[in-house]
């Protein structure tokens, strides 16, 4: 039963993501996005997803595809708009069918980490004096003005990693780890698209960044990682 977390395909791994789900997506600026999982999700035509992700700039073609296919109705991100004229998020937002929440990236990561760590919320000194603190609960803590940031949970996490063993321990390569540690901990079901699957014990324990307790499903990637 060692490989019970291993799924045959990206399609199978995302088959039960329902309409209206909140998905937390790994990758930074579209690099190291779980392209296979996102494509499979777009193919299924789910609707009304809330998508939490880093900027959708540059390389995240599958994320663009998911958005362009009308699967996403809300994006929570530090930079949801690409700033380019062909930006599908911009089009949908202008048409009133897309809600956009902009959150500084360190704060977004910390909100997911809080959710994963059972923290009820944190006081952060980020964004004071900007639109990101307006209308929010603020307080002076230890003489520092802080904003209260609530945990951010997801139903599913979709991430890319270099290597998984059968029990879901993950190792990354270079900047691949990006949002992943925060993302996988905050989701009810975490799905990892990986380049390589090895037997349990096949990863040096000192190199495991995400322990298998946070990972529910593993899919061997059929695509070359972007980045």
């Amino acid at each position: 039963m060692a490989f019970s977390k291993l799924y045959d395909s990206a399609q199978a791994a995302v088959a039960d993501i329902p309409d209206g789900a909140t998905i937390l997506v790994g990758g930074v600026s579209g690099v190291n996005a779980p392209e296979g999982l996102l494509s499979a999700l777009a193919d299924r035509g789910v609707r009304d997803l809330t998508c939490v992700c880093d900027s959708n700039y540059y390389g995240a073609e599958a994320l663009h595809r998911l958005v362009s296919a009308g699967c996403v109705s809300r994006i929570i991100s530090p930079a949801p708009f690409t700033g380019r004229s062909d930006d599908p998020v911009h089009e949908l937002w202008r048409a009133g069918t897309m809600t956009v929440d902009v959150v500084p990236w360190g704060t977004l990561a910390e909100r997911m980490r809080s959710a994963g760590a059972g923290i009820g919320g944190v006081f952060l000194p980020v964004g004071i004096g900007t639109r990101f603190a307006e209308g929010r609960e603020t307080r002076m803590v230890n003489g520092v003005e802080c904003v209260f940031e609530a945990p951010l949970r997801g139903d599913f996490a979709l991430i890319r990693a270099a290597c998984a063993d059968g029990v879901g321990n993950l190792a990354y390569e270079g900047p691949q780890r990006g949002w992943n540690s925060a993302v996988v901990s905050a989701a009810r079901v975490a799905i990892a698209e990986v380049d390589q699957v090895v037997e349990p014990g096949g990863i040096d324990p000192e190199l495991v960044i995400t322990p298998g307790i946070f990972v529910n499903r593993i899919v061997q990637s059929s695509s070359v990682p972007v980045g």
Partner: protein
Amino acid sequence: MTLERLDAQSVARRAAAEIAPGSVVAVSGAWAVAAADLVPEEKGVWFLRAGGTLSDLPINAADAGAALRGGHVDLSILTAAQVDSHGSFAGYHAADYPGPQGHAGLVDLASGARRVIAALPHIREDGTPNVVSALSFPQDGARCVDTIITDVAVFRVADDGLILTEVAPGWSAEEVRAITGAPVSVSPNLRDMDFDLPPGRPPSKVYADGPGAIADLPDGATVFIDGFGGPGGMAHYLLVSLRDRGSRNLTIVSNTAGIARVVSFGTPPGRTAIDHSVLVENGQVAKAIASFPVSPSVSRPSEFELAYRRGEVDLELVPQGTLAERLRAGGAGIEAFYTPTGAGTLIAEGKESRVIDGREYILEHGLRADFALIRAHQADTRGNLVYRGTSRNFNAVMAPAARVTVVEVDEIVQPGELDPEAVVTPGIFVQRIVRRPDGFTGYE
């Protein structure tokens, strides 16, 4: 005649001239990243990039945000769109990003670094100034920029406005003033822009011995001490060095207050494990903040217990997970957080409680220290640490939360010799490195 403005590479070079050897610098945007690329490796500078790297190490987004908020970044260089005379800035042109909030890519960089430099074109293509009295684009940081570098000038942001300190070659103060959208006073020391990198190399972090590495640990200091419970994974050599130094009235923060000696796993006959007890019995400890401060055996009380019964020491009891989280918060610029652990128990007394989504939480605060004494397997000379097995215990959360983190290692290697994927504690969190002497065992 139209004066030439500097090209992007020259602005980047001027920004690079602000980067001190060995410093930690966050960069975002084209001009800032170009500045980073101009700094040679031997300067030992750490560059935190939004793409998820800290120089040649991978770093996850939560840790990168934590490094910024936690005060570990000496300088942020950001490519801004607009800066005002108070040092508030906008990260992008409003027309480029729709919606009331646009994007937040630079907000973190502005919120934690000790210094913030904004690099930007002095004017836009249509001649509109980008250095202004009041921002017209969305503000990404309030009163945080202290130096503005443009393609014609350098300004210092003072309490009462902008001071022009440098001009690009060929430019006069009046010519700069004419295309600046805010009042400018001219420094009496106005000079041409200086494009030279600061000289020198970073000071070495490697100390010859333990006593030298803690020679300035003062009376009354708060000290993090690593270890879980047994004799493994502790900075024994540094503990003995601290005993020898004799600093008094210490507050120690640790999982236990010294029980390795009483639990004695694997202790050779006739010898005693080195733990916090060496400080307690030497009368150096005034208080412990710990999660397991007593011996598991009633008949074999620890030194700390005996001192507590004699009324010589204070104790703050903290649940183990809360201790780790308070340490992380201290190093991550999280001033306070809500945890469900201990709600409704003695631990909650005197603390704010709050019901969130139907569950009761209590408010806990970050912990910081003057010194951390920790143990790792290997360090490179930059201070990057690799642990071995369970000995990483509290180290990763202690190192960032102390002003001076001293690490005791088995081996010191050259930069590049450690697998970047195996580095758990990046060198930005480590100030001093000592090799544990050959034959030093952790027992005496």
